[in-house]
């Protein structure tokens, strides 16, 4: 009991002193984070935030910031979101800007695209991207291609978001990963956040980007909490689209991954270190389109070995593309054939054991890495 009382005045003194000096050094905000003082205040400023809350915060901040922005989708308003990502937005922004739609994906997606063509900045939520397949013509033909077809006179600032990929026990029709589908379309940008910081920074970037952007979230990550830095908690935090993040540096193996598989890859990397003393570098793609080829190839040059981990179907997928790029840009640096760990080529089964067999698990990643490294 005694210590807080003793420390409190000192803390106040410290904070007031810091705040007094802050105006004198405004440039600190611009210095790279690595040079910034990482002391007591920063440590304290980091907060555990779930992906769901990070997305919610991003939506609220962008709705606050720009009157042209509104969100529409199934159950986004009164129900507070099928996955509660839009919780509280109706109360805060009213029914004009948080709009429940009928269950007509093609219709409301087309409507969002039309509103974007007419100058608004809609956020179109799909309850899951599996249902967006009903509207994929609008996303690709109406949204992605119009700017080019018009010779650059008709932009379309629209954001499509929702959970993508498999969830737990929802079987084949609700489990597909569309990263490769959207990632193949010129005119679209596609991001796939993993952590809370990713979720907030990328969603905000997507909403602000003047092109149509697809934000592929993951239902299994919504409830997961991640540390969020002080900078990321601010309302001006935006991550660049098209830039990957090295989540764990290493020298022996490059693991490129996205969305939920980033977490699995990090755990696998820790296990590789513990079991074999191998240093695996884990790259969180963050952005599927544009793809950060430079970061991947730089890492490949360093490690000489490449492994992709994703939960999409194996054929013509994100991993296939990265492996092809490694051939084109990094063949001379590869010391072993690049490999991929992907979802299995089956419609997702319902039974838990079979479902587990259909997607990369941590031991799958560790096993494949060990094989690649001939351990």
């Amino acid at each position, binding site marked *: 009991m005694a210590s807080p009382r003793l420390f409190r005045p000192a803390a106040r003194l410290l904070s007031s002193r810091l705040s007094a000096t802050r105006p004198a050094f405004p440039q600190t905000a611009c210095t790279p984070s690595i040079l910034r003082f990482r002391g007591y205040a920063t440590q304290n400023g980091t907060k555990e935030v779930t992906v769901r809350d990070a997305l919610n915060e991003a939506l609220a901040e962008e709705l606050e910031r720009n009157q042209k922005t509104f969100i529409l989708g199934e159950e986004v308003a009164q129900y507070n979101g099928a996955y509660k990502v839009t919780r509280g937005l109706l109360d805060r922004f009213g029914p004009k800007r948080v709009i429940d739609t009928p269950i007509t994906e*093609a219709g409301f997606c*087309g*409507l969002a695209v*039309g509103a974007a063509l*007419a100058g608004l900045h809609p956020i179109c939520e799909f309850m899951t991207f599996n249902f967006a397949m009903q509207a994929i013509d609008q996303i690709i033909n*109406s949204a992605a291609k119009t700017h*080019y077809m018009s010779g650059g006179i008709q932009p379309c600032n629209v954001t499509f978001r929702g959970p993508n990929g498999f969830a737990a026990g929802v079987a084949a029709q609700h489990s597909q990963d569309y990263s490769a589908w959207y990632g193949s379309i010129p005119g679209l940008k596609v991001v796939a956040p993993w952590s809370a910081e990713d979720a907030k920074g990328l969603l905000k970037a997507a909403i602000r980007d003047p*092109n149509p952007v697809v934000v592929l979230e993951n239902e299994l990550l919504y409830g997961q909490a991640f540390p969020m830095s002080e900078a990321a908690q601010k309302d001006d935090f935006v991550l660049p689209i098209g830039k990957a993040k090295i989540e764990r540096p290493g020298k022996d193996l490059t693991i490129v991954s996205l969305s939920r598989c980033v977490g699995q890859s990090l755990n696998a990397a820790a296990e590789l270190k513990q079991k074999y003393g191998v240093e695996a570098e884990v790259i969180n793609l963050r952005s599927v*389109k544009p793809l950060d080829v430079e970061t991947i190839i730089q890492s490949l040059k360093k490690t000489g070995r490449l492994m992709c981990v994703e939960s999409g179907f194996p054929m013509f997928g994100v991993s296939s593309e990265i492996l092809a790029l490694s051939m084109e840009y990094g063949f001379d640096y590869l010391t072993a054939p690049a490999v991929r760990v992907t979802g299995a080529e089956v419609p997702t089964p319902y039974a838990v054991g079979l479902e587990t067999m259909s997607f990369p698990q941590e031991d799958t990643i560790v096993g494949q890495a060990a094989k690649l490294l001939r351990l």
Partner: protein
Amino acid sequence: MSLKALLRPRTLPFFRPWAQAPAVGCRYLAHVANIEDIPNEDDKPFTVPVSEASFETYNFDPPSYSLETTKSQLKQLYHDMTLIRRMELAADSLYKDRKIRGFCHLSTGQEAVAVGIEHAITRDDKLITAYRSHGMTLMRGGTLKSIIAELLGRQDGISFGKGGSMHMFCEGFYGGNGIVGAHVPVGAGIAFAQKYSEKPHVTIDLFGDGAANQGQVHEAFNMAKLWDLPIIFGVENNKYGMGTSAERASAMTDYYKRGQYIPGLRVNGMDVLAVMSAMKHGKEYVQAGNGPLLYEYATYRYAGHSMSDPGTAYRSRDELKTERGNDPISSFREKLITWGVFSDDQAKEVDRRIRQRVNDEVAEAERSPEPELKADVLFQDVYVRGSEPRQRRGRTIDETYYA
């Protein structure tokens, strides 16, 4: 009968007794009633009658059967319809000369719809249509040269040669859309934006009788009515979706009733005055906050579906001949001559000038260079300038484009 024959002045009877017309395609025939007190001044308003057979309503009051206009406006209507006709015929011959590639859908026969709509709305109102869009683009403010140049795939094209026949855009005009039915909810979104931004304007959302059977058209109807969007949906019923007649594709061909909970109106789409009167009426209704309307313009396409379709396999020559007897341009011309708006000679002079203008602008469009064959041009405008990805792949790794 060749398309060019249409432009020959013909003597049509001023008044056709309805009983004489054949059972199919007789819904609306030009009906010239004499009017009195035509002013001498070009810009002095006076009233012209709209044929009583022009409208069929569904839960909706019919528009006015008289239209206030001026001599100069009537001449302009004639001018615009003739200009579209000449432009389409020019496109037809350019296509046959193999100068236009790919798709080219002509709107000959349907000119009264494009012209009637444009003269009833303002430039602040928005319009979106399907792929038969040349006439609409011209009416919305696209220049003749830029449209022809686009068809030719040239630099001076309205979309700089990147869109082609089906994809032309300009202020207040959202294309030119190639996926049948998909642009209908997009139009609802444009109307949504108008309502959201509290603008007092309306959106005109046009599609064909073929598209009317698409599911998402009905999704758009539902949301438009649910949220009272300021939109007038318009089915341009030219009786065929490609080669399938409306009767063979639609369980119910009264398209204006297909909105069910949306009031509807069938308009004689071969009569520019009827279209204009209907659009003025509809715009007032929608602007008053009454929600959407569903219009059906009964019209006819003289040409085939596209240039590869001679348009003869699925319809008879007799039918074509009957429909041509009801031509929107020549019947309107007869009206204007009867009313004394202009003389036969003056009409011929208008025709001659338009022909000359189209020839000149086509020649100018043909002089426009092709887009430069370099990566900068190829990769430009995939993304909004300043937000492009750093690199995009060409056909080979060596052709990778760095912004």
